[in-house]
């Protein structure tokens, strides 16, 4: 009897870890693009996640334009559409502010613009948090879907032990994986993707190739914003959120990106997956307050053993 319960708990934690991990993976890819690849420190990434949640909420609920899609399909279409909306926001933010502290303007300077980025993005983060408080209020909200309280049952696998796969999370997980693969294909194989990577690698040389570096950075920043926003929209279907939710996730995003290895989109995804997995599985043995502590214990262990990250590759010749 005791063994059955244990097996059920472990299997369900693993299932939750993988589904939530994939969504975290997508969230981390957004930051992975901005921080890992373009090397722009962005502390407002958590707020981009928050904006994704609210964008999805306002699209789907009440008199939102997607309300006709109903509670089953709507929330996921809303999450996907939050991407382009926040993409535009991110690109404008880059044009107005971030461009002044990144790219060609800071290439070759002592700090590569990181100090400026730190201050600017922290400021943006504060403005978005408190602006959100004024606009959206502080009541925790959620994008309701009946799927969040339904699950596929697998089993019983051992005695009475059954695995429950939450339908909302499962669909969110699938959307996250598809979006992540799409972005990876874009960066790896298209002319635009290669130009973005070239501009990030060496802005001056990219200019010599005829690449408009400022525009490349703007697109990359917008893409990173939009991707994290899609993850936010997906998360909004299973958790409640308020304008300050970004704070909880910005640290998770940074640990995911660093874990996976800077400069690799796939790495950021695996890093996020690892973080989500550790967080969910730690629930088996640790009280909920210590779940984030568990993330950092694993984080420190991995960074100690593999300083280049799980999937980092060293491109510099020794």
């Amino acid at each position, binding site marked *: 009897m005791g063994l059955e319960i244990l097996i059920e708990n472990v299997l369900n934690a693993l299932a939750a870890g993988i589904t939530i991990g994939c969504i975290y993976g997508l969230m981390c890819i957004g930051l992975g693009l901005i921080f890992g690849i373009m090397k722009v420190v962005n502390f407002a990434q958590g707020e981009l996640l928050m904006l994704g949640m609210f964008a999805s909420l306002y699209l789907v609920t009440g008199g939102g334009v997607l309300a006709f899609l109903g509670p089953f399909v709507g929330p996921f279409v809303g999450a996907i559409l939050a991407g382009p909306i926040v993409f535009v926001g991110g690109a404008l933010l880059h044009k107005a502010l971030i461009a002044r502290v990144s790219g*060609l303007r800071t290439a070759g300077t002592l700090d590569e613009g990181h100090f400026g980025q730190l201050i600017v993005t922290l400021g943006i983060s504060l403005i978005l948090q408190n602006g959100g408080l004024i606009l959206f209020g502080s009541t925790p909200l959620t994008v309701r879907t009946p799927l969040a309280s339904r699950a596929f049952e697998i089993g019983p696998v051992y005695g009475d032990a059954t695995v429950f796969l939450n339908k909302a999370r499962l669909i969110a997980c699938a959307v996250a994986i598809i979006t992540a693969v799409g972005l990876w294909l874009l960066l790896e194989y298209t*002319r635009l993707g*290669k*130009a973005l*990577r*070239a501009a990030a*690698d*060496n802005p*001056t*040389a*990219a*200019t*010599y*190739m*005829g*690449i*408009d*570096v400022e525009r490349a950075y703007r697109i990359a920043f917008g893409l990173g914003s939009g991707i994290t926003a899609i993850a936010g929209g997906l998360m909004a279907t299973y958790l409640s959120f308020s304008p300050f939710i970004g704070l909880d996730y910005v640290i998770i995003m940074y640990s995911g990106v660093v874990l996976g290895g800077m*400069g690799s989109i796939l790495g950021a995804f695996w890093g996020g997956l690892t973080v989500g997995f550790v967080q969910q599985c730690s629930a088996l043995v640790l009280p909920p307050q210590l779940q984030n502590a568990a993330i950092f214990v694993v984080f420190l262990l991995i960074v100690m053993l593999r300083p280049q990250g799980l999937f980092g*590759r060293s*491109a*510099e*010749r020794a």
Partner: protein
Amino acid sequence: MTALLEIEGLCVAYGGLRALQDVSLSVAAGQFVTVVGPNGAGKSTLFKTISGVVRPTAGRIRFQGNDLLALSASRRAHLGIAHVPEGRQVFKTLTVRENLEMGAYPESGRAQWTRTLERIHTLFPVLAERATQLAGTLSGGEQQMVAIGRGLASAPKVLMLDEPSMGLAPAVADTIFERISQIHREDGVTILLVEQRAVEALELSDHGYVLETGQVVLDGPYETLLADDRVRRSYLGLSDA
């Protein structure tokens, strides 16, 4: 001969420091022009001003009659100006092949991609072997080949090379010079070269400029420069005897 690239009275200052003073230079289509001079003479600044990453305080740059200064840096590459920068500056995190593809970013490069890639691989067979390797993991000589190949990939009208032999073993540098000469002779690409190894560079060229502390102190064909005692001693390492 009509000038492909024409520079008149170019002045550049970094803060209060004058890097170029009243520099005039002209490159005709099909020519091989070399600029020699000591460190800090402003050679790289000259190239960066042509490419547009450095803005001049005065002067004019015309390319095929177009006013280059009216164009943004990234637009200039699309006119057919390829800059192979000092210190190679390859995209380290991109593969060799992707580096070359980025060279072909301008329309002219894309249109002729299959042909130019084949040509680049003929000139530098090692780049075909290492196509999928990250450029950052290559040796200095190989990175220089990537940088030159990347410049060629845009099917440029003028190829500007900034110290392509820097930091390379003499034998490798010789190969690089040979390839540059080949690119000039066989592909008919106009070459503008900045080089410390003045003898080799000037031997290849139709016309040479000597740049000192931001000013052109002498210019002319190889024979003229060779006849100048100061140049012989300072740059060519030849004694009077």
